[in-house]
């Protein structure tokens, strides 16, 4: 036993949980049983480690404890299937110990397997997100529930339903073959990206950024990059998260949301920017970039600009053009139109935004009228700008963004004399 401080116990659990669970799932072939014995092992550790000290190899200690517990549970069941499972656990343990002498590759494979199972396209998106945060991120069910602003009971049911589908539909624990990877990887990437965007522009509620959730998305992206370093879109996703997250502190002030144009760029996190750009520099030359790498490149152009005005908007327009051909979406069209307005003036921006107003996907999207309002305001067409801000305010769901839009609207609304006029009533 080492002299490590008891305070590290929590951090160790967080770090080890995904690995522990992933290996147990492979041994036991059962997510519920793996979860149960992993939780038992953690409970024992919580009791013992503060007294005995944190073991030198906490992961191995937890795995051994969990395995013994699983074998106990299985023996008690007395069924033929349980007896087979005990034999299998013992055989795989011997195999794992043999292999772990050459490095930690088998555990890494286990985690990668669990990623592809939790993010299987046969599962509903909300289930994939919940499973990934719970089983790879090591968040508790109540933490996952809080992150998505749903009651704990709802989240517990969501996890149960997803686990039941894995078991009943026979979703396997396996890493897709190289030829399957292009079809399967985007599902994994989109789960991590969704967790990040939810953290970053929380779709409802009082906070604009939920830093813990953003950190969790970043951690998952790092784990995936560690497991699949040669996959360019994995590097692209990690770079994107780093390059956007670098602006986190400058994005919200005491008075609310601060747009990119008004952010104090000295508060950007240059460690993250450098890391993100470094990743991109290594990723981009390898062939035509995918959607995450392209979005990362756009974020990098912003991050490298000394000021909003000095941003290389033409470069951004060009990157959006490529993104549009690789991954067309109405939101990409909207961003391209806004960038065109920045590059060539508000009248041009308005023209391109005008082409999008009929798109059904953008009908309820507050950023379209918000962008129109801004260009109208720049052109001095204040009545139309007022209307557009009001429409954006009707559609916005995040409180912090609402405050921002209201401030812009107030700033262009002529102050009306609101002194009460006596004597009109009765």
């Amino acid at each position, binding site marked *: 036993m080492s002299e490590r401080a008891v305070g590290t116990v929590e951090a160790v659990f967080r770090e080890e949980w995904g690995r522990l669970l992933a290996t147990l799932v492979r041994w*036991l*072939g*059962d997510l*519920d*049983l793996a979860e149960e014995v992993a939780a038992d092992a953690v409970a024992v550790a919580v009791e013992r480690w503060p007294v005995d000290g944190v073991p030198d190899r906490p992961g191995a200690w937890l795995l051994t404890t969990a395995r013994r517990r699983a074998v106990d549970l*299985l023996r008690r*069941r007395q*069924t033929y*299937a*349980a007896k*087979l*499972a005990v034999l*299998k656990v013992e055989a795989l343990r011997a195999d794992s110990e043999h292999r772990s002498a050459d490095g930690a590759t088998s555990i890494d494979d286990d985690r990668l397997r669990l990623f592809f199972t939790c993010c*299987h396209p*046969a599962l509903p998106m909300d289930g994939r997100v919940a499973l990934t945060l719970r089983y790879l991120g090591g968040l508790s069910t109540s933490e996952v529930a809080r992150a998505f602003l749903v009651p704990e009971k709802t989240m517990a049911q969501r996890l149960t339903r997803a686990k039941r589908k894995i078991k*009943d*539909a*026979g*979703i*396997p624990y*396996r890493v*897709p073959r190289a030829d*399957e990877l292009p079809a399967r990887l985007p599902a994994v990437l989109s789960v991590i990206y969704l967790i990040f965007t939810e953290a970053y522009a929380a779709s409802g509620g009082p906070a604009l950024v939920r830093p813990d959730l953003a950190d969790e998305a970043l951690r998952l992206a790092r784990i995936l990059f560690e497991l699949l370093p040669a996959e360019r879109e994995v590097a692209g996703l990690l770079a994107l998260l780093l390059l956007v997250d670098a602006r986190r502190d400058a994005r919200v002030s005491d008075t609310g949301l601060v747009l990119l144009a008004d952010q104090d760029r000295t508060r950007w996190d240059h460690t993250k920017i450098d890391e993100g750009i470094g990743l991109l520099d290594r990723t981009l030359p390898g062939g035509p970039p995918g959607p995450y790498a392209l979005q990362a490149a756009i974020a990098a152009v912003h991050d490298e600009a000394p000021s909003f005005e000095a941003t290389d908007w033409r470069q951004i327009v060009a990157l959006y053009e490529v993104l549009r051909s690789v991954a067309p979406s109405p939101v990409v069209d909207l961003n391209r139109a806004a960038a065109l307005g920045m590059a060539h003036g508000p009248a041009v921006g308005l023209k391109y935004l005008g082409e999008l107003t009929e798109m059904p996907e953008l009908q309820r999207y507050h950023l379209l009228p918000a962008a129109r309002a801004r260009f109208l305001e720049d052109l001095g067409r204040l009545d139309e700008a007022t209307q557009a801000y009001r429409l954006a305010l009707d559609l916005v769901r995040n409180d912090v963004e609402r405050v921002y839009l209201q401030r812009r609207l107030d700033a262009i609304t002529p102050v009306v004399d609101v002194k009460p006029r006596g004597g009109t009533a009765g």
Partner: protein
Amino acid sequence: MPPPCDPKEGKMRYMFLIYGEEPATPPSQEELDAEMAEWWKYDNAIKESGLFLAGDALQPSQTATTVRLKGDERIVTDGPFAETREVLGGYYLIDAPDLDTALDWAAKCPGAKYGSMEVRPVMEFDTPEQ
């Protein structure tokens, strides 16, 4: 809690429910021949794979009759249970190690191109003791 099962060890049965629109006008002989050639090719491939358990095409949905009991009364109605554009046109029953394998085979089926394939695991019951 049910005993753990590793899908790799115990095979599972999956049913492919093949849905498609029934054409308003019959296809030309050439179109029909071309489509049937695809179906025969797939049918041979899945039979040779060792996964095949059963499979059939169904007569068109106009031939369907729905029956249900209301109390003791037998109610027989013409046509399929639900009126939808996509109707059940056939099925395959296969034995596969996991959902990924089943999805691979479902995607290869011409039914995936002409309509859609619903892939469902078969519910397995413990055989009651005699």
